[in-house]
C-alpha cells in the first residue's frame, strides 16, 4: 500500500508541464488532485516513472462566465465548485452532481478535470458535461483544441487525450433563459459508488416544447454515455408523463449495465428507468420557471 518509486515534478506553467509530458511520454502521468491516482499508486495497480503534478499550474482554477460559456479551470476542486455562488445559482445540474461526489474530504482535493479525465464510468461530472453539451479545451504542444464531451471518454478509463496533451478547461454553455437541468444519483449505501445516475439538461422553445435535450448517464455502461435516441425522441415534444416515461424506456434501452454487488443489471435498468423519468420531469419543470 505504498507507491513504487517515481520522479516528481510540480511545474507552475502549462508550458513546462507540456514539455515534461512530451519528454517522458508514456512513462509519465499527469496528477491533479490525486484522489483517484494516489490510491491506484498505493495499491500498485498503476506505476509510473514520472509524476507530473499540475496542481500548481497557474490560471487553471477559475470559474467564470466568458462569452457563451461558463469556463471551469480543470484544477478547480470539487469543493470550490460546490461552494461557488454562480454555480449554486445558475448551474444546478452541476451543483447537484458536485455535492454528491465521494465525500467532503475527497472533494477538498479532487478536481473537476481529474473527475472527467480519469475516465471512470462511475464518476459524475462526465455525464453532466455530456448533458450540457460542454466542450473540453485540450492543451498540447501544438496549441489548444476543443472537443465535445461525448468524444472525450472513449472507453472505461480511456480518453481521447493524445500523447503530450492535458485537459485544461471545461466550457459549459451558459443556460438559455428557458432551460432546466438536474442530476439524480442512486446508491446502495451512503458510501457507495452509484447504482445509476442521470444528468438531464433541457432547453425549451417558446411553446414549451423541447428545443434541445441533453441526457448523460453514469455507471450504466463501460463509459459515460449520451442517450442519443432518447434525446431525439423528446426534442420537439412537450413533456407529459407519458413522454417522460417513454423517454425513460428508451434511455434504459441505450444503457448497458453490468451485474455487480451493487445490484444486478436488471435492477440497475429498473433504477435507471425511474430516475430518468424523474429527471426529465424535473428538468422540464425547472425549465418552465422563468
Amino acid at each position, binding site marked *: *500500500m*505504498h*507507491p*513504487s*518509486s*517515481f*520522479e*516528481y515534478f*510540480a511545474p507552475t506553467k502549462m508550458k513546462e508541464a507540456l514539455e515534461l509530458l512530451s519528454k517522458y511520454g508514456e512513462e509519465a502521468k499527469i496528477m491533479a488532485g*490525486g*484522489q483517484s491516482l*494516489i*490510491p491506484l*499508486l*498505493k*495499491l500498485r495497480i498503476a506505476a509510473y516513472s514520472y*509524476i507530473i*503534478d499540475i*496542481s500548481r499550474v497557474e490560471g487553471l482554477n477559475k470559474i467564470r462566465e466568458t462569452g457563451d460559456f461558463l469556463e471551469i479551470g480543470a484544477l478547480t476542486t470539487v*469543493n470550490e465548485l460546490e461552494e461557488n455562488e454562480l454555480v449554486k445559482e445558475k448551474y444546478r445540474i452541476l451543483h447537484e452532481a458536485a455535492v454528491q461526489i*465521494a*465525500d*467532503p*474530504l*475527497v472533494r*477538498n*482535493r479532487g478536481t473537476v478535470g481529474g473527475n472527467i479525465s480519469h475516465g471512470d464510468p462511475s464518476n459524475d461530472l462526465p455525464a453532466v458535461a455530456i448533458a450540457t453539451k460542454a466542450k473540453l479545451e485540450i492543451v498540447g504542444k501544438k496549441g489548444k483544441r476543443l472537443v465535445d464531451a461525448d468524444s472525450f471518454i472513449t472507453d472505461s478509463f480511456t480518453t481521447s487525450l493524445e500523447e503530450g496533451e492535458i485537459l485544461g478547461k471545461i466550457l459549459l454553455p451558459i443556460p438559455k433563459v428557458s432551460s432546466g437541468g438536474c442530476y439524480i444519483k442512486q446508491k446502495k449505501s*451512503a*458510501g457507495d459508488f452509484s447504482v445509476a445516475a442521470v444528468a438531464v439538461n433541457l432547453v425549451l422553445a417558446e411553446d414549451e416544447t423541447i428545443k434541445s435535450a441533453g441526457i448523460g448517464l453514469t455507471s450504466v455502461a463501460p463509459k459515460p454515455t449520451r442517450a442519443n435516441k432518447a434525446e431525439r425522441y423528446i426534442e420537439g415534444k412537450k413533456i407529459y408523463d407519458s413522454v417522460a416515461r417513454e423517454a425513460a424506456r428508451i434511455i434504459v434501452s441505450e444503457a448497458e449495465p453490468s451485474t455487480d454487488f451493487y445490484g444486478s443489471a436488471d435492477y440497475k435498468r429498473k433504477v435507471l428507468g425511474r430516475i430518468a423519468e424523474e429527471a426529465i420531469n424535473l428538468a422540464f419543470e425547472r425549465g418552465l420557471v422563468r
Partner: protein
Amino acid sequence: MRIVKIRTRVNGKDIQSEVEPRELLVHFLRENLGLTGVHIGCDTSNCGACTVLVDGKAVKSCTMLAVQVDGREVTTIEGISKNDELHPLQKAFLEKHGLQCGYCTSGMILTSYWLLKNNKNPTEEEIRKNLSGNLCRCTGYQSIIESVKYGAQLMMKEKEKEEQQIEVR
C-alpha cells in the same frame, strides 16, 4: 531515486525536510515528524482516520504526497490545542464520550473542526453528511454527533466571551 526538499509549516512550526516523492503525507507526518495522532485505517481513501487540515481544509493525508505540501500549511490533531488547553471540540469529545477505541477520533475532530469553521451551528443532518468521509466502528456515531453539537456550543460561548472582553476594553 531523487530526494526532494520541501518547506512547510506544520502546527505553526516551519519545517524543512527531505522526502522521497512517493512518500505519503501521512507517513511524513508520522515517521518524519513523529505526529502519530494521524492514523491509517484503509488504503482506498474511505475511512478518514488520516484526516489533517491542509491550508485550513480537511483532507485525507493518505491520499496526498508529502511533496504536495511544499509551501503549504498543515494542521494535525496535535496542533489544535492552544498551549496545554484543549480545543473545545476535544473537550466535547471527552465529555460526551465521542470515542471508544480512539482510532478514528483525530479524524472525526479535524473534519468537524473544518465544518465548524464554515458552519457555526450545524444541524444533525449536516454533521452526518459532513462526516461521510470518516468511519467509526465503535460508537454508532451518535455520541460523535452529540460531541460535535456540544463542541459547536462551546465554541460559540468562547467567541461570545472574547467579544465581550473586547467590548469591555
